């Protein structure tokens, strides 16, 4: 067996320069999504076989314009490159640069070169550059930059073979520097001597950035602080001077290597022409509404078909397996607990894949940046940013993919606020609950000639959810403190066709991440909920079962009635039933009795479960074709034994609507917030604040209306 050498290759570069395409070309389907420790950015890695003797782990670093991070997450790039102890510290770094926009791309490239890591520069989008009469002399550029430079086109894989050839040989350290560090900060020499493995530039970078590093040893912090105090080092001045010096060097390089004819830039002209329509005060917003109505329609309505299919496949397979395996608690645990829990995870996949399919297309084409551009001012008045638009709209279908889509929000504060308020948007799981409650409490009459009263109530509930989200965002903007400033500053990329391969890969990747990361928590909670609803203290459940074997009792009912009755009695004697009784004093002021209490607990699995549970409790039977009229009739006749009044009074029903509009009644959302924020802190805050607000609002509603 031949000895294989394993190396790490990092991919880095500006956003929108085709990094994802190159990563996909290099690693194909051998990709994995993991974590960079301590931050919320995903670490995408993939394996690349270079030759018999050399195999590489390719690490995709977040796209950045500069080594100085704009957001905390971008510290990853600095840490990976500067810290030799980092797991992902590369042996070679491949820098992607957009050839049609070389000057700005070279800023980051020269920063990395100055860090002294073996570097290869891949000039991407040569086709766009050539189309716009920008001619780059690659060999001159290679000479000027002192590192290997290849021209390529990641979209069609042109030039990748040259890159692979360079990577399979050894890449040497860069030969030259683009700043005069002695002139910039001569004292850095002293610091670099104190900190092993760092050159002078890296030492100065550390002096600017060390406070943001997550696990940087305390003694080094102290060392740097002392040096900063002694030399009166001013980070901002160093940064500014560095950028100036760099652009001076870059201008010289570009003048020497790039021949740009003073003709019009066709890509930009075309983009400008399209912008004239897409950013138009009237057409722009109409198109925006149209596009998002389409996306919303897809995740709200079209996703329903595969979701129904998944549900029915899981339930038939579950029933089949349940009958196949020997009856008993293990069987129940496996089928009704575990299997049903997995079904509850898989059912989200269509919505997630569809939403991310659309998001990736919109991003690839360049339209997403325009959405932020159009919506920024409006959204900012509420405490959010233009980039919160997509998550908020998606939240009206389902909070799960919506929260996953907050990844694109750069500012941590904007992102957290968006995550915290998205679940207020009326999602599709609330629809069955609202339908039941509205049809129960509101007469179907026509108002103002054309509107149906029930329709108006539904619309009102959707608006209520939306307004709650806006108000919550506004309040959180005042509460959450951060030293990070929200920036808009972003490239508006030229319009291009979407890369379908990239769309497919992203859809699969998002589904996989959801299933593996959030899925575990969802399955665990569903097993707990199943247990609570199926087992009771002592032998109460067995007592119920015994009662239903007594023929003197059972002969009064037919089989369907009997089954419904048994389900109902079992549920009321289960732990969930007992918890319902236990919390009754707390929810009485909201107008809820213990039976509604049970339903609130089971609805934590997913809001729509509320309807099924109510049906079970009132022995209408939740399996098969549930008779909504029968359910409404049973609800109508339900009398509170203590007060002798109707349980589902108008006040109670409205209070329930308000509760469902506001409460955090969704374990999957909690799981996905945990995954996206990488801590239990935010999902717990969200659970308590939303449910607290819901409690208060329902309390006020009920007390006013009763």
């Amino acid at each position, binding site marked *: 067996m031949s000895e294989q050498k394993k190396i790490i290759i990092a991919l880095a570069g500006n956003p929108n320069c085709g990094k994802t395409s190159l990563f996909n070309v290099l690693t194909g389907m051998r990709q994995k999504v993991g974590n960079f420790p301590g931050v919320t950015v995903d670490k995408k890695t993939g394996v690349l076989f270079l030759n018999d003797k050399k195999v590489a782990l390719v690490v995709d670093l977040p796209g950045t314009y500069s080594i100085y991070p704009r957001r905390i997450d971008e510290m990853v790039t600095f840490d990976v490159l500067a810290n030799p102890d980092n797991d992902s510290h590369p042996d070679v770094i491949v820098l992607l640069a957009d050839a049609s926009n070389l000057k700005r791309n070279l800023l980051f490239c020269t920063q990395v070169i100055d860090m002294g890591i073996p570097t290869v520069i891949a000039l991407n989008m040569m086709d766009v550059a050539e189309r716009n009469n920008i001619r780059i002399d690659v060999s001159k550029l290679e000479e000027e930059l002192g590192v290997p430079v290849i021209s390529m086109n990641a979209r069609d894989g042109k030039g990748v073979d040259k890159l692979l050839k360079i990577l399979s040989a050894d890449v040497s350290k860069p030969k030259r520097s683009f700043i005069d560090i002695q002139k910039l900060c001569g004292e850095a020499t002293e610091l670099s001597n104190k900190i092993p493995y760092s050159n002078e530039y890296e030492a100065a970078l550390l002096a600017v950035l060390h406070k943001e590093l997550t696990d940087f040893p305390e003694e080094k912090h102290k060392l740097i602080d002392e040096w900063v105090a002694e030399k009166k080092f001013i980070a901002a001045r160093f940064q500014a001077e560095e950028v100036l010096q760099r652009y001076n060097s870059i201008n010289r390089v570009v003048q020497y290597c790039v021949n740009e004819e003073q003709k019009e830039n066709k890509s930009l002209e075309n983009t400008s022409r399209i912008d004239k329509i897409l950013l138009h005060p009237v057409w*722009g917003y109409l198109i925006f509404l149209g596009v998002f109505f389409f996306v919303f329609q897809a995740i709200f309505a079209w996703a329903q078909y595969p979701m129904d299919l998944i549900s029915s496949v899981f339930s038939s397979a579950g029933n089949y397996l349940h009958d196949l395996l020997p009856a008993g608690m293990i069987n129940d645990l496996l089928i009704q607990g575990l299997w049903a829990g997995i079904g509850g995870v898989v059912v989200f996949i269509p919505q997630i894949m569809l939403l991310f399919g659309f998001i990736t297309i919109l991003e690839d084409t360049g339209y997403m940046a325009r959405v932020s551009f159009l919506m920024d001012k409006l959204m900012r008045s509420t405490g959010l940013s233009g980039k919160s638009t997509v998550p908020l709209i998606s939240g009206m279908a389902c909070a799960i993919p919506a929260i996953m889509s907050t990844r694109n929000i750069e500012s941590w504060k904007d992102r957290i606020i968006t995550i915290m308020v998205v679940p207020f948007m009326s999602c599709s799981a609330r629809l069955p609950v609202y339908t039941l409650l509205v049809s129960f409490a509101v007469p179907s009459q026509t108002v103002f000639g054309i509107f149906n009263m029930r329709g108006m109530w539904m619309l009102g509930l959707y608006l209520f959810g939306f307004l709650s989200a806006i108000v919550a965002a506004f309040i959180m903007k005042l509460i959450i403190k951060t030293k990070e400033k929200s*920036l*808009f500053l972003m490239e508006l990329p030229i319009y291009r066709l979407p890369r379908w391969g990239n769309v497919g890969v992203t859809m699969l990747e998002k589904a996989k991440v959801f299933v593996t990361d959030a899925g575990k928590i969802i399955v665990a909670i569903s097993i707990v909920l199943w247990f609570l609803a199926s087992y009771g203290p002592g032998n109460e459940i067995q007592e119920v079962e015994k009662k239903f074997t007594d023929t003197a009792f059972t002969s009064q009912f037919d089989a369907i009635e009997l089954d419904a009755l048994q389900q109902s009695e079992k549920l009321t004697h289960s732990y969930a039933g007992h918890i319902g009784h236990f919390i009754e004093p707390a929810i009485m002021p909201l107008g809820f009795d213990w039976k509604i209490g049970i339903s609130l607990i089971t609805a934590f699995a997913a809001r729509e479960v509320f309807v099924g549970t109510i049906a079970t409790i009132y022995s209408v039977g939740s399996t098969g074709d549930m008779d909504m009229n029968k359910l409404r009739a049973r609800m109508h006749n339900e009398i509170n034994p203590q007060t002798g009044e109707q349980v589902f009074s108008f006040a109670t029903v409205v209070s329930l609507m308000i509760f469902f509009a506001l409460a955090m009644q969704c374990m999957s959302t909690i799981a996905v917030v945990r995954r996206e924020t990488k801590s239990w802190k935010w999902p717990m805050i969200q659970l308590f604040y939303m449910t607290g607000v819901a409690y208060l609002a329902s309390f006020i509603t009920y007390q006013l209306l009763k």
Partner: protein
Amino acid sequence: MRLPMNKVAVPLSLLRKGDKAIIVSLDDSAISIKLMEMGCMPGEFLEVDYIAPLGDPISIRIGNYLLGLRKDEAVAIKVIKQ
């Protein structure tokens, strides 16, 4: 030296759609470093390409690309109109 009125440096945020200008300086603020990193260097030419329908943000053409920025970010850039 006498400067004509239209040669006085003004903040980029005051420019109108279609205006062309040259960057003369940047403020001494934290955002300036970010702006410079994005290519907004003294001496660079720019053109205001679009102003969002609600008046903010704006999009400028600089170097070979379009940069979107809020007006309160654009204040940091001082330009002379061409």
